[in-house]
Structures are given as C-alpha cells and as structure tokens.
C-alpha cells in the first residue's frame, strides 16, 4: 500500500511541477500577480508529495518489504537498522529520489524566503526550479521507478552492497546532493534574469548566500566522500581522479569561481554577464556529473547498474537545460548593461584571475574526464587518463592560484597597489620559506612539485592570517584596540580569511601525503615485526568475529615506539554473507596529525597474512582543511549583510529575517 501511495505521490508531484513550471512564468509574462502567486503554494505542495514518496520508500526499507523490487535488490532483514535508512539512496532509483527531494526542498526554501523578491523574478525562478523538478520526476517515473513490485515476493533481500554498509553513506551522498542541487538556485536566478533581461546588485545579493550554502555542502560532501574512500577501500588513497570524483569537483571549481564573481557583481556592479554564465555553467556541470554517474558511460567505482535508456533520457535533460539556457544567454546576455570599470591591478582584477584559474582548472578536469570517451567514440582506442595527467596539468594551476590568493584581499577595489600588498606579505612569505626550509632539512629533500606545493600551502595560510592581522592593525596599535577592531570586523571578512587558510591547510595535507608517505607491503606470521617511520608493528595473530550479516577475520597488531606499546590496530577483512562479498576494514590510528594505516590482504598457507602498512604524515590536514573552509563559509553566511531578503530590508526587518 505504501509503495502504491508513494508512487501516486510522485505522479502528483510531477503534475504540480508542471504547474510550477508554466503558470508563474506565464503570469510573469502577462504581469498577472494572481498567476505569479501560484508558484509558492505549488512549491510547498510539491515538496510535500516528494517527501511523502521519499519517506514512503524509507518506510519500505525499514520494514524490509521485499515485495518491492528496489528493497529486495538492496536490503536484507539482518542488516543493521541505520543502514536500512541509508540504503534508500544506496542505489540508482533511490538516489534519484533523494536528488529530487533535495531539489524540492530548495524550491520550497526559495518560496519561503523569497517574499521580498520582486514578484516577476520570484515567479520566473520558481518556474525554472519547477522545470528541473518536472524533468527529473519524469525521469524517475519513466525509467527509474523505485516502487515496482515483485510477484511472488521473495522471502529475503539480496543485501546492500557491503561497501555501502557504512556511516559514510549516511553523510556523503546527502551532503553532495545538497551541494549539487543547491547550485540549481543560482542557475534558476540566472535564467530568470535572462528572461527579464534585467540584473542588478540586488540579484547578486540574493544569489550569493544560496551559492555559498551549496558550496559549503559540496565542499563537505566531497571531503567526506574522500575520507570514506580512504578508510573503506583499503588502498590508503584519498583521491583517485575517478570520473565520478571529477564530476563532483568540476561544479565545485565553477561554484567557487561563481562565489567570487558574485562578490564583484554585488560590490562593484561589474562582471554581470560573466557571473550569469558561471551560474549556468556551474549547475550544468552538476547536471553533467549526474549524467556521467547515472548513465554508466564511464567506468567508475560508483557505477550502478547501467541501462542505456536512462543514459539517453538524462542526456536529453542535459541538452534541454544546458542548451536552452546557453541559447537564452546568447540571445539576451548582451542586453545586460555592463558597469563598474576597474584597473587590472585591483580587487576586481584579482577576482578575475581567480575566476580564470578556477574555470580553467574545471575545463582541464572536464578534458581529462571526457577525452577517453571522445577518443573511444572516434578511434575505438581505449585509454585511461589517470592521476599523472591531473597532477601535471592541475598542479601548476593550483600552485599559481594559491600563491596569488593572499594578494587578492589586500588589494583595494577599483585600483590596487600590488607593491604595497607584496610589502605587507613579506612576513607571510618569509614564514612560508622558513617552514619549507625546515621541512627540506628534516626530510632531506622531496619531489620538486611537493616542495612548491608546501610553499604555496603555507603561504596561503600565513597570507590569510596576515590579512586578518592587517585589518585589526595587530602590533601597530595596542592589543586592546586590535581586539576591539577584531570584534567590529564583519563576519564575512573573518569567513574569507578562514576559508582561504582552509584551502592552504588542505594543500599542505595533500602535499605531505603524496610526497612523504611511507608504505610497506609485507607477508607476516604471528610474532613477526615490521617497522615503519619509527613505529614497530608486531603482528600477533588473527581471529574470527561475526556480525549480523557478516563474518570477519580480524588481525591484531601492537604498535610500539622504543619497545613500549602505544596502541593496537585491528584491521579486518569482512565477508558479507548474502552476497559472499569481501570488504576491507582498515585499521587506522591517528598520531598527531598523521595516521598509521593497516589493511589486510589474503591469509596464506602456514598462518602468514599479507598486509599493506602506511604511515601518512599530516594526512588529516586534508580533511581538517576542508572543514575549516566550510566553517569560513558558514561565518560568511551568518554575516548580517549577506542575509537573504533583497531588496535590502530595513535594519528592523533584517533582524526578523531568518539567516539562510
């Protein structure tokens, strides 16, 4: 019954999305406020129906109703309860439903917080959101219905893919989708502005918080996915340049660029056309990512069951939305008036460079991701483009980006003083050089790219701190005065510096992990030792453990430093019984900022076991840095000047408007 009702709710949501697509836009074209006002209640109702379907599917999973094909394929009655909730989006159909659910939430949020928007802008934005929802709901109903029944109903399910039976599944996909889909709002605003042929600073003031929200989620989503892959796959790597990872990093790069160009537009009324284009491109890359993942055109660890009709369907959606919006851009873009001129050396100029480097990086990732597809289509040659390509082509771009980053915030709007900025960054650069020299001394050298990366990473952190110190006049005035200034500094200024420091911190982690990791591969018998990076690992033996739906061989290691046991590691190999599929549960211990990482291989005759042992110095900085970035973003978001509600509300009303 739940399945049928949920299916019906999805059909209703589709019809409502069609209403949301056409009625408000038609009203905006005729300047009819009654028709335009249809948008909001329909958006709320649409969310209601999609939520009903989503939680309906969740109820079917929690109740282990194996008469539903989707539940049968991806669940098992013995599975831990938490995974019965998260298994909802651990498959193609359910994850598309999550996608649409998140879209409906954002649609409803626009309706909720958009009361102060000009009527026509709001109507058009809701219309575009409705169109996206309609397209994806039709996709679900036509090709990916999660509510299909099986007759007769099987007694037991086939279990969820063991790799997904992990808390990572609870965190990574929802965050990622909140990011991907969040960019649809910037896209909808861009298309709405093009339809109206009008765009102003108020538009940017609206788009910026939404973009920032999406960016925070996407940053955390990518980072959590990376940590999940790191501990779950047992290869010790944090990033594989897998096509699906690329699919998430492209919108991140474009979205980061959009975040910065929207600042220029809001403050200086410049870069309008470019900002609109970026808003379109960012969401287009999100859609492209969805297509690449869901169509199965690319081989990837993320590939679900592939079905060509689905690929074609998403391709049509892709062409309609990306093509349609770009055509609209080509026709109407020129009508948007340009404003605000600036010298090449200025805050605006620095942000243009930022945009250039970020979009170029996105284009490079796109090239590396699609080149194998294009080549195979043209010549039937099969190639793989792996980490070497991305490191060599993106490395220099990122080094340049991070080396220039501290200069941006120190330049004035309109016309900046590059020499003055450089002078103020002397200490920051000096500190970076000292750190790099110390590392060079203590490690007896390292790869050149790693040294340059370390320099750029430390400079990004010290440079961001310099900017803060500069703004609170640290050491130039009494500490009390500096403290008062710090309190008066807008949160967005803190946010900028903290986020900039965050990317530096991440880069330091990446460099340390790639440049100075140690690895041992050993075949060990109980009582044997292996030493790595000053640690001694004593292999004590293996025993068996059983869980609700798995059996495991758990290895036991004592970690010793100078003969004293400081920790134990218990890496395991699990076999999930329903699918007879093994997974690796790495044993990880954090020492300082580095991690000791052990993953088990096969047990061999004679009681030996093969194991991969890594020492990864400062590896945790990679993820800590992204959390710092997200915190910076949240601080910015909480800045009063950024609160949603354009045109800018009076102070009294601003206090009453919830922050978004």
């Amino acid at each position, binding site marked *: 019954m739940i399945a049928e009702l949920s299916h019906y709710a999805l059909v209703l949501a589709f019809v409502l999305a069609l209403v949301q697509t056409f009625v408000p836009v038609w009203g905006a074209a005729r300047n009819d406020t009654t028709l335009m006002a249809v948008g909001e209640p329909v958006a709320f109702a649409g969310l209601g129906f999609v939520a009903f379907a989503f939680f309906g599917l969740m109820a079917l999973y929690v109740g282990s109703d194996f008469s539903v094909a989707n539940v049968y394929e991806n669940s098992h009655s013995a599975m831990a309860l938490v995974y019965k909730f998260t298994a909802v989006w651990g498959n193609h159909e359910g994850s598309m439903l999550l996608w649409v659910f998140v879209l409906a939430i954002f649609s409803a949020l626009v309706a909720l917080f958009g009361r102060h928007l000009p009527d026509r802008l709001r109507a058009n934005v809701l219309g575009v959101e409705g169109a996206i929802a309609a397209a994806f709901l039709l996709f679900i109903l036509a090709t990916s219905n999660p509510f299909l029944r099986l007759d007769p109903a099987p007694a037991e399910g086939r279990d969820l*893919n063991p*790799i*997904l039976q992990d808390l990572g599944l609870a965190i990574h996909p929802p965050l990622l989708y909140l990011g991907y889909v969040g960019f649809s709002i910037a896209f909808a605003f861009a298309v709405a502005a093009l339809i109206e042929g009008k765009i102003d600073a108020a538009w940017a003031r609206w788009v910026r918080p939404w973009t920032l929200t999406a960016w925070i989620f996407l940053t955390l989503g990518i980072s959590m996915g990376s940590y999940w892959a790191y501990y779950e*796959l*047992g290869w010790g790597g944090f990033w594989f340049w897998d096509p*699906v990872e690329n699919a998430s990093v492209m919108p991140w790069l474009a979205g980061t660029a959009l975040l910065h160009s929207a600042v220029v537009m809001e403050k200086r009324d410049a870069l309008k056309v470019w900002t609109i284009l970026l808003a379109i491109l960012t969401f287009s890359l999100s859609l492209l990512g969805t297509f690449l993942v869901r169509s*199965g055109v690319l*081989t990837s*660890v*993320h*590939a*679900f*069951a*592939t079905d060509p009709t689905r690929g074609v369907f998403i391709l049509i959606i892709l062409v309609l939305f990306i093509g349609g919006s770009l055509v609209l851009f080509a026709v109407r873009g020129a009508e948007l008036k340009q404003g605000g*001129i*600036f*010298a*090449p050396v200025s805050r605006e100029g620095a942000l*243009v*460079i930022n945009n*250039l*480097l970020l979009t*170029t*990086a996105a*284009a*490079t990732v796109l*090239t*590396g991701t699609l*080149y*194998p597809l294009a080549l195979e289509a043209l010549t039937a*040659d*099969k*190639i*793989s*483009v*792996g980490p*070497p*390509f*991305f490191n*060599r*082509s993106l490395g*220099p*771009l990122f080094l340049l980006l991070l080396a220039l980053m501290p200069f941006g915030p120190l330049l004035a709007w309109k016309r900046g003083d590059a020499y003055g900025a450089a002078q103020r960054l002397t200490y920051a650069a000096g500190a970076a050089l000292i750190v790099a020299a110390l590392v060079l001394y203590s490690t007896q050298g390292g790869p050149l790219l790693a040294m340059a990366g370390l320099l750029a990473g430390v400079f990004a952190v010290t440079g961001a701190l310099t900017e803060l110190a500069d703004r609170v006049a640290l050491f130039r005035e009494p500490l009390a005065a500096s403290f008062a200034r710090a309190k008066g500094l807008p949160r967005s200024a803190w946010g900028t510096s903290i986020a900039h420091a965050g990317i530096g911190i991440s880069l330091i982690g990446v460099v340390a992990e790639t440049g100075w990791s140690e690895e041992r*591969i050993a*075949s060990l018998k109980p009582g044997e030792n292996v030493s790595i990076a000053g640690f001694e690992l004593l292999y004590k033996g293996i025993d068996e453990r059983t869980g609700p739906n798995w059996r495991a061989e758990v290895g036991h290691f004592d970690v010793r430093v100078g003969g004293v046991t400081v920790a134990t590691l218990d890496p395991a*190999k699990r076999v999930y019984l329903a*699918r*007879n*599929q*093994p*997974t*690796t549960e790495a044993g990880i211990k954090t020492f300082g900022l580095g991690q000791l990482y052990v*993953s088990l*291989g*096969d047990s*061999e005759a004679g009681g*030996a076991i*093969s*194991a*991969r042992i890594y020492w990864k110095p400062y590896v945790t900085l990679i993820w800590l840095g992204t959390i710092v970035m997200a915190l910076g973003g949240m601080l910015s978001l909480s800045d009063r000047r950024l609160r949603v509600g354009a045109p800018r509300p009076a102070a009294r009303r601003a206090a009453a408007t919830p922050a978004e």
Partner: protein
Amino acid sequence: MTRRQRRLTLIGISLAVLGLAAALALSALRESIVFFYSPTEIAEKGVAPGTRIRIGGLVKEASLQKNGLDARFEVTDGAKVLAVTYRGVLPDLFREKQGIVAEGALDASGVFRADTVLAKHDENYMPKEVADALKKQGVWHEDKGKGGAK
C-alpha cells in the same frame, strides 16, 4: 588606462592563462595516457615491451599461483591468454573467473608485469573495457552486466 586598454589587458591575461593550461594539459595527455588492450589485441597488434599499458579480461580458472606476496595468474578474453605477474596485495574482489584490469608493462618474454591490479567493488560488475573485450570474442552474456557499486 582607457577602458579599451583595460579590457585588452584582461583579455591578454586570460589568453595567457588559457594557453598555459592548454599546454600543460596537452603535454600531460601525451605523456600520461595509458592505452587498454585485451589479450587478443596484444597477440595481434604486438605491443613493445616496456610500454605502459592496461590489460583486462577474466582471471583464468586454476591459473593463480601465490608465493607470499608474489602472484602469477593468467588473464583471458576467451580467445587468447596472457600471463601476468604481480607483487603485492591483490584486491578483495580478485578471484578466478572474475573480471580484472591491470596496469603495467610487458617484459621481453611477453609476460605482463603488473604494478596495479584493479577489481571492481561488486561481484557482478564487469569493468567496461573487459566487457567490450569479451563481447568481441563472443563469450559475453548480457545478464552478467547487472549490478554495480557505490
């Protein structure tokens, strides 16, 4: 500076960055792409020893020999067989009759020395290159291709 000069400066910088990126990407592409071959293609086309390539196919039944960390097995696409050696820890899903992809180079005697062995994260999932190679040899059945990971 006039508006025109400013604009030209910006365009100049943009072109410089784009040019740099294109140069980087092209040189990286030329030097770091890796071609994929099936055992049949290796036998027919002849790949120079030492060239970095990817190979793939099914691990042949009863071909796996292990000695500590050293493994030796054969990969087949149904028509031809290729001997592979690997030192290290094989992935979880490495099994006989399972589709795998390996990266490395051929040695002078025609044995493939792999430094990376990949098996995908689902027992039903077949790497796309392997599936295509098997289809060519007519040993592929559509129902094998269902299922996937993450």
